[in-house]
Structure formats: C-alpha cells, structure tokens
C-alpha cells in the first residue's frame, strides 16, 4: 500500500509537471500581430518588436539555456562573467560562513538564555523586534559601518539567520522536562555535565528545527544581498541577467536557486532525524 501511494504520487507529480510545461509552451508560442516594417528599420529592432514573439521564453528556450550552463559551469571570462558553478560556489561559501557564525553564536547564547527564565523574558522583546527585519534593510547599515561589501553580505546572512536558531534553542532548553532535570539533580550531576548530557539531547530536535528554518532564510538572504552588492554569486548572476533583460537566464537561475535550497534543507532534515528520540 505504501509503495503504491508513493508511486501514484510520483506519477501525479510528473503529470503536473508535463501539464505546466505544456501550458507554458502554449502560452508563449502565440505571436502578436505586428505592423509591416521597413527592412532597414527591422534590422535594428529586437525579435519581440519585429515578429511579435513573446518576451517570455518558453520551456524549450529555458531547457536549452540550462543545458548550455551545465555544459560549461566553471568558465571564467573576467571579473563580471563567470560560470554558474563558480557563482554558486561563491554563494554557498558566503552562506556557510555567515550561517556558521550564526550557529556558533546562537546556540551557546540560546542555552544561557534558556536556562534562565529571567533572561529569556528580558531579552524576548529585542529578539521579537529584530527577527522580522528584512535583509535589505540591514544592508545599507552594514555597508556603511563595515565598509566592505563582501563582509556586509556575510554579516547580513548572520544577522538574519541567527534569530530562528536563537528562539528555538531558548525554547528547547527551557522546555526540558522537569523530571529529567530533577533526576540529574538527585544524582548530583554538575551544571556543565547536565547541559551536555541532559539538556542538549533533550533540546536537540528543537534546535535543529531552528537551524533548518535558518538555513532556508540564509539562502533567501544571500540572493538579495548579492543582488545589491554585486561582484560574484548567484544573486549577482540573476541581477546581471536581469540587466540584460534575459528572462531565460533569470528563470534558469530561479530553478538552480530552488534546487540548491532544497538540498541544503534536506541535509538538515537528515541531521534532524538523527537526533530525534521517541518520548
């Protein structure tokens, strides 16, 4: 029964995809009527003006572009034109740095706050205010104070991805069952040992949920940040192609961004399954 369900789901996904692609192709293949043009004039104009071709590319165009990028993902033709593989590597590197820093800060701090009900109440308003701030709002401040655009991008990832982890760590630590803590106390377990052997395993699933939310946010932020500071990365790639009004490349990068985001999310989902325990 289980197998047939997943098989049926697979078939349905496939059918949906085919339907979407077909609809897309049909929607863009119609051409608007155009007036007759002087050939000399027409030579100076783009296809959408001369033949009425839709400015939106079809799935075939996008497929061809994806193939082109996959064939040669690591080319480097100067500082402003690099292959999509190199751009992705830059972005993932930045995310790893900013997110790594956020993990290093959020989990210990979350532990401290979680273990003290007073601190957790006192700091809550600050966290609540800073949490929903958009990455783009941090950017000018970061550029102005840090005075280095690549560090600013990392800082923005850090500041945006820290909050879900912090909140979840606090929540997980504070929610450790009283009975377990009492048992530890009866056995005269020291505070450090208690933190590592009792609270950490108890809070781990919640902490990892926070980390999973955060990696999603970090990946969302990197695209916006790179669009703004430019130079390298997948966000810059999108901006550069937008500059050329190349919708085909923009759609390609949307797919790639989604794919990488999914992989990052799945990695943490795996990790989460490892630490989950039955109650």
């Amino acid at each position, binding site marked *: 029964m289980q197998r047939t369900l997943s098989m049926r789901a697979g078939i349905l996904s496939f059918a949906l995809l085919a339907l979407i692609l077909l609809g897309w192709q049909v929607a863009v293949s119609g051409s608007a009527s155009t007036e007759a043009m*002087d050939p000399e*004039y027409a030579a100076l104009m783009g296809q*959408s*003006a001369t033949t009425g071709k839709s400015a939106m590319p079809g799935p075939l165009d996008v497929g061809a572009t994806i193939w082109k990028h996959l064939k040669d993902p690591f080319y480097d*033709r100067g500082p*402003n034109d690099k292959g999509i593989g190199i751009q992705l590597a830059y972005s993932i590197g930045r995310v790893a740095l900013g997110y790594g820093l956020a993990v290093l800060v959020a989990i210990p701090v979350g532990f401290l706050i979680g273990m003290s009900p007073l601190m957790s109440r006192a700091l809550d308003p600050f966290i609540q205010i800073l949490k929903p701030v958009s990455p783009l709002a941090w950017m000018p401040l970061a*550029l102005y104070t840090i005075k280095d655009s690549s560090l600013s991008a990392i800082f923005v990832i850090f500041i945006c991805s820290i909050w879900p982890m912090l909140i979840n760590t606090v929540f997980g630590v504070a929610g450790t069952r009283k009975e377990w803590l009492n048992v530890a106390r009866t056995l005269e377990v020291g505070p450090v040992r208690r933190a590592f052997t009792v609270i950490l395993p108890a809070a781990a699933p919640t902490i990892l949920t926070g980390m999973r939310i955060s990696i999603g946010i970090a990946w969302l932020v990197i695209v916006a940040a790179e669009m703004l*500071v430019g130079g390298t990365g997948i966000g810059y790639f999108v901006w*550069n192609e937008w500059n050329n*009004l190349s919708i085909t490349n923009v759609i390609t990068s949307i797919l790639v961004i989604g794919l990488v985001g999914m992989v990052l999310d799945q990695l943490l989902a795996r990790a989460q399954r490892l630490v989950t325990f039955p109650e």
Partner: protein
Amino acid sequence: MAPFDNPFDAKRRRGRGGCSCGGHETQAAHEAALPTGDAAIERAVEATLMRALFPHQAERRAFLKSVGLATAAAAVSQFLPTTFVAEAFAEAGKPEKTDLKVGFIPITCATPIIMAKPMGFYEKQGLNVDVVKTAGWAVVRDKTLNKEYDAAHMLAPMPLAITMGLGSNPVPFAVPAIENVNGQAICLATKHKDNRDPKNWKGFKLAIPFDYSNHNYLLRYYLAEHGIDPDTDVQLRSVPPPEMVANLRADNIDGFLAPDNVVQRAVYDGVGFIHILSKEIWDGHPCCSFSVAQDTIREMPNATAALLRAILQATAFASKTENRKEIAAAIAPANYLNQPLTVVEQVLTGTYADGLGSVKKDPKRVAFDPFPYESFAIWTLTQMKRWGQIKGDVDYAAVAKQVYRATDAAKLMRQDGLTPPETTTKTFVVMGKTFDPAKPAEYLDSFKIKRAS
C-alpha cells in the same frame, strides 16, 4: 564702513576712505592683503564648507568660540583636506600600485572606462585594472568611499554631491575626466506616441537614474521650460536603469530620461520610442564622470595619473566615429554591458531606430570628450540649488574648481600629446538660453519655476 570697527583706534580712519572690511587704510591695501591663487581658492572652499556645516551664523560663532580657531580649522580640514591635488599629479613616475579596481555601471556612458580594459589601454600604462560591474549608483558611491574601488564611473553631479556631503558624508572627490557628453534621451511608452507636447504631460510618472544626476536636472529643466512643475505636476522616480525598461513594459511609468543603451533597449524590445535626444536640450552636456577620491590621488599620485592617462587615451580613441563599431563589439559581451550588439552599435554609431518606424542618423548622438570644464560643475550646482538639494549659499566657482580638475586634465593631456582646450570655462546654451559661468546667481534667478528662495 564696517559695522564693528574700533572707533578708538587712532590709526583707523572713520567714515569714508577705508576699505570694505575696515581693517585697511584703503581698498587697494585690503585687496593686496587678500590671499591669492590657490590660497584664495582654499579659503573660499573652507568658507563654503563652514557655511554648509553651520547654516546659521549664530551656531558657527558659538562653535568657533567654544573650540577655538585652530581646533575648528583642524576639524574642518578633516572633512576637506584643502591642500591641493594638483601638486599630487607630479611628473610621471612608477605607479605605487598596479592592481587597481574601477567600478562601473553597465551603460554606454562608461565606454572609455570599460573599453580601456579589453582594448589594452590600461595595460599600456603598466596597470592591471579590474573593471567591476556594480548594481547601482548608491553602491558605486559607497564602494568608492570604502576604498574597495580605487576609482569609479559616477554620474557627473555625484562627486559634487559627495564633496558637499549631500546624501553621504562629505568626502572631497575629484573629477579629472568626463566620460561622455550627450548620449541620453527621453524615452516614452509607445502608447504616448501621439502625445509629444510636454505641456500635456501633467500626471506622468517619469523615471530618472539617480537624484544627483544630470538626467534629473535636464528632465526637470525640460519640463519646467514647458511650464510643468517637476515637483508637483509629475512624479519623478529614481529607478535603476535596467528596471526602467521592465517598468515601462509593465506600464508603471510613462517614460524616462535615461542613459543610453537603456533607451535603445526599450526601443529594441518594442516598448518605447525616443521622444528627443538629450542633446536637443543641451548639446554637449556632460553625463558621467571618471571620479577619484582626492585622498586616493594624494596616496598614489602616479597610479592615479597612469589610470587617468589610460582613460584620456581611451576617450580620445572613442571620440573618433570610425572606431565606434570596434568599440561596440568590445564592450557588448556579458563581462561588460551584457547587451545585444546591435543595441550598443546603434547608440555608438548614431544610426538608430527611433521606435516610431524610422531610422535616424545622428553621429553626434553620443560624443566622448574628457575635458572637465568647470562651467559644467557650476551649471550642475545652479540646478542643485534650483531644486533645493543645496540649501544656503554656494561658492560656485570654488567648489567647481575643487572638484572638476580641468587644470590637471589639461596638464596630463598635454604630456600625452593631446590638445586640451585653452580655457577651463566656457559658455553654452541650454534650450536656447545662454549660461554664463561667471554669473550663476543671475542665471538661477532667471528661472520662474524653482525651489530655491
């Protein structure tokens, strides 16, 4: 007679005959005691800066009284080291640093800066320059202020704005070369092709690339000359160039005055037409500039001079129409402008589709002339004041001379066997009205529609 001279000073003559400040026997003696040459400009720049920092006399006096003159002078010169940049451009020496970064915005205005890379002009000066594409004007400004870029492509008014601290901290900047003259256009959505009279444009939403741009000032000028108040009758929006075409297609704006290849791109994509070229407003107007922080010039005079030589040579090469096709092919690829070749070619050769079904020929559509006339800066300053971006008094000539380094450019051009113009100022005509750089205040007064009081 000055109001506060000392009536008990035996040496001083009361009443008629004294000088304008009261401190000298005669007006001639007063003038002889005034600083001259560079010192005079330095003093004038300081005075302008003090006025900008303290718009109210009382505050200025209180500040000077509380900290003393020496401290005040030191504090102010931090914002604006007024020693002269010209000395920094010494004779050609070995560059202090050969790996340089120059930021640019992907538009044809940046042609000399960009082409100097693929066509080897930087290499010829022994420099290894990375030209880095940047997302927008504010980012270019911030990255140049951060020293991530050694020099950058900026809109011609930006270095003036940065020097005076409009929209950023005041940091003295220099424009040793203008990139291009002309080469902009007003582009309107195709639906307005029968609505060509600006008098009927009330309620239009128009886009400009940046607040401190000659695009902004030219569009405002053009609208105001036709009786449209740019602040109340239309909506002006600052929009990054690539988004202009998309916004025009989405019907969010009615048109824009934008740098080229963006205008031609709108035509190419069939969403807009060229209403007028910017040269029809002011033939020979400057658009973009090659800008360097004055600090950078002082820190590495030889490298900046070498960089500037490369730009001047590239500009001279670009100014010849027969080279334009070759340049278009060099700058159109993804590493630089990332535009279809025909769009860049149409802009640079001046044989272009106008979006209304005809092919126009105007080889002067864009021209490249590096000379940073001080008059350009003065005109820009009058417009900044006209639209309320500058409050208070401006010493037009001093600021212009401080930022637009016409004398330096002339010196380097001569060293390189190019012929610079004889003078650093000139008069020109904007929409039929002559601008005399010696009389900026009168010029400003002559406008009916303005924000300046």
